[in-house]
């Protein structure tokens, strides 16, 4: 009798584990199916030229998504990423055009990203304000600062070396793709291989327990907003290079795509869950949908519908995964 009960339990656990793996990697399957279908209906899709284009088109959303992933894993949210992208790239472009030093421009971009991220982080942690509200305010403030700094004019006449980050190539590899790979690898290392990453996951899963363990929750949470700020700066430089000007309305609405990429990729809005590769796949799915619609000459307005549907499916998958994990835990402790 004892044997049978145990055997049943192990069988149930295995079943659950397999299903959990399929569900957790569900985002890979969605991407794979999407790519297969598109390569069948369009003979331009699976060409090297097109895929490289997609890679170029996806980098801004992907990098913003990576930044936002850190914040969301820590159980926060950052709605200001679009505006933060604009203000950091406006400062950088302005410096580039007036001072002429590429290094200075890059430092200003990253520096302002860090600074503004720090401000938001401190407001959220030290003053205990809701991240939604603070970053919503940030979204407006940074946009306003961009408009003030640029006077409503786009900053153009940018030199080739600055534009390179957005429109250049190393061999056949687009520069933005290279930057994305570097950012993704660094982000992955921080998130999965260091204590910092572990603490961020911990804070997102169970803030009180983490605090009681003696970890400085405020510091690490603020760090996530700083990381998001840096990602915005990098994404901004790429976008500016791609579009050939720092436009005052750059990045408007991009926060939604960034968060969508994270959510599609399996980042849970409740915190404690999320991966870099997931976010990148999420960004790819959004980008490939847009690319596919363009290639197939379908009304681009379907794009918003499609992306929205994918988000909802992703959240459903997320909910199922949590349910499965709970079941798994329950089965494991059943006796």
């Amino acid at each position, binding site marked *: 009798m004892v044997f049978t009960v145990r055997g049943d339990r192990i069988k149930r656990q295995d079943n659950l584990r397999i299903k959990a793996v399929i569900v957790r990697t569900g985002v890979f399957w969605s991407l794979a199916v999407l790519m297969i279908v598109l390569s069948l209906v369009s003979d331009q899709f699976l060409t090297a030229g097109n895929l490289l284009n997609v890679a170029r088109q996806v980098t801004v959303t992907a990098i913003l998504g990576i930044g936002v992933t850190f914040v969301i894993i820590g159980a926060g949210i950052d709605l200001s990423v679009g505006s933060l992208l604009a203000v950091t790239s406006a400062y950088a472009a302005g410096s580039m055009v007036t001072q002429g030093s590429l290094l200075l421009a890059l430092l200003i971009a990253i520096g302002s990203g860090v600074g503004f991220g720090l401000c938001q982080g401190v407001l959220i942690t030290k003053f205990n304000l809701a991240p939604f509200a603070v970053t919503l305010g940030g979204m407006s403030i940074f946009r306003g600062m961009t408009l003030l700094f640029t006077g*409503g*004019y*786009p900053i153009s006449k940018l030199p080739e070396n600055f534009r390179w980050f957005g429109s250049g190539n190393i061999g056949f590899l687009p520069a933005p793709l290279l930057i994305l790979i570097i950012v993704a690898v660094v982000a992955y290392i921080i998130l999965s291989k260091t204590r910092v990453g572990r603490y961020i996951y911990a804070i997102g899963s169970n803030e009180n327990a983490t605090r009681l363990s003696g970890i400085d929750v405020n510091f690490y949470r603020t760090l996530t907003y700083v990381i998001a700020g840096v990602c915005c700066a990098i994404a901004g430089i790429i976008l500016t290079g791609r*579009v050939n000007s720092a436009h005052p309305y750059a990045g408007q609405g991009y926060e939604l795509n960034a968060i969508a990429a994270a959510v599609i990729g399996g980042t849970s809005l409740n915190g404690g869950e999320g991966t870099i590769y997931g976010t990148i796949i999420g960004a790819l799915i959004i980008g490939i949908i847009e690319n596919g619609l*363009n290639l197939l000459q379908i009304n*681009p307005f379907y794009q918003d519908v499609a992306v929205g549907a994918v988000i909802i499916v992703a959240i459903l998958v997320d909910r199922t995964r949590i*349910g499965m994990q709970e079941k798994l835990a329950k089965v494991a402790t059943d006796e």
Partner: protein
Amino acid sequence: MKLKRKNRMKTLLLLMLIVVLSLSIAACSGGSGDAETSDDSAAQTEEPAADESAADETAADTAAASASYKFAYLSPNHGNPFWQMVASGVETQAQANGCDVTVFDAQDDPAKQVSQAEDALQGDIDALFLSPFETDTGTTIAEMCNAAGVPIFILDTGAEADYTCFITSDNKQGGRVAAEYLIENTDDSRVVAEEQGLIGRAIPALRGVGFNEVMDENNIKVEFVQPADYNREKGMTLMENFLTSNPKINAVFCWNDEMALGAKEAIAARDLTGQVLLIGFDATDEAVQSVLDGEMSATVAQNPKGFGTQGVDLALKHLAGEEIEKEVLIECKLVTKDNAQASLDGTLFE
């Protein structure tokens, strides 16, 4: 319990499959790339494949049988009636010559326009028609086309790279005409305001240059000048702010009709309709109707459909190996109550 889990998994996979399948079904049955086209060309854009085979037969009959070319037109914002008219010009003329056009809508996002250019160039087109979001976007895309060896025809706004042809209105002349109208219809008690468009679009900004040239020549000061980005909402808000600053404003020049139509609402809200001289630019149908109804004083007609038509004609010449002019300026015409009906009837430039 086991049943519940199985059902949930199945539902999820089914949902994902549905999303992907519906996209592919849309792909197979669709084929039209644009949402809002004017009535005459709507029917023709539905099945470009069918059109091409039918058009091939008629094209063979015509004396100057043009090959069936593939074009793409990149619109910065298909929601703006001005660009709709340009698109309509491109589509009508292209279809009349048995060619195929795909229209892309960048929805006012320069990054989207660059992406759409990349995707369009993937599609083996014979020429690209571009109305850039801004001059810088135009520059980037022109460079892309040059690298890909595809001729690029810039319809308005401009680009600072090498292009095959650039067609635009003589915006400066249009601005001057508007300014002259303003001076003739106001006296020395005038208080003048100006609503600018997106400063980054260098070519339409010439309207402001022309306008202010005439103002300077006559020593008239423009009291208020601010951008409203060619947007109706912003045009209205800006006008409200102007009137709050100085309720005595009695003449406004807006760089486009969208902003003027917004300003018109702000003026009406203060019961000042008819007391403030309101001049727009573009002569969109809605604005011209406004002029007929006495709510707007005047607008300046460009010939946006002409951009498209001329563009396609020049493209066909270029692809047939002929020399074409690099820059083409098309004159503007003032539209007031007298010729408003002609503008609506489409006979203004005849």
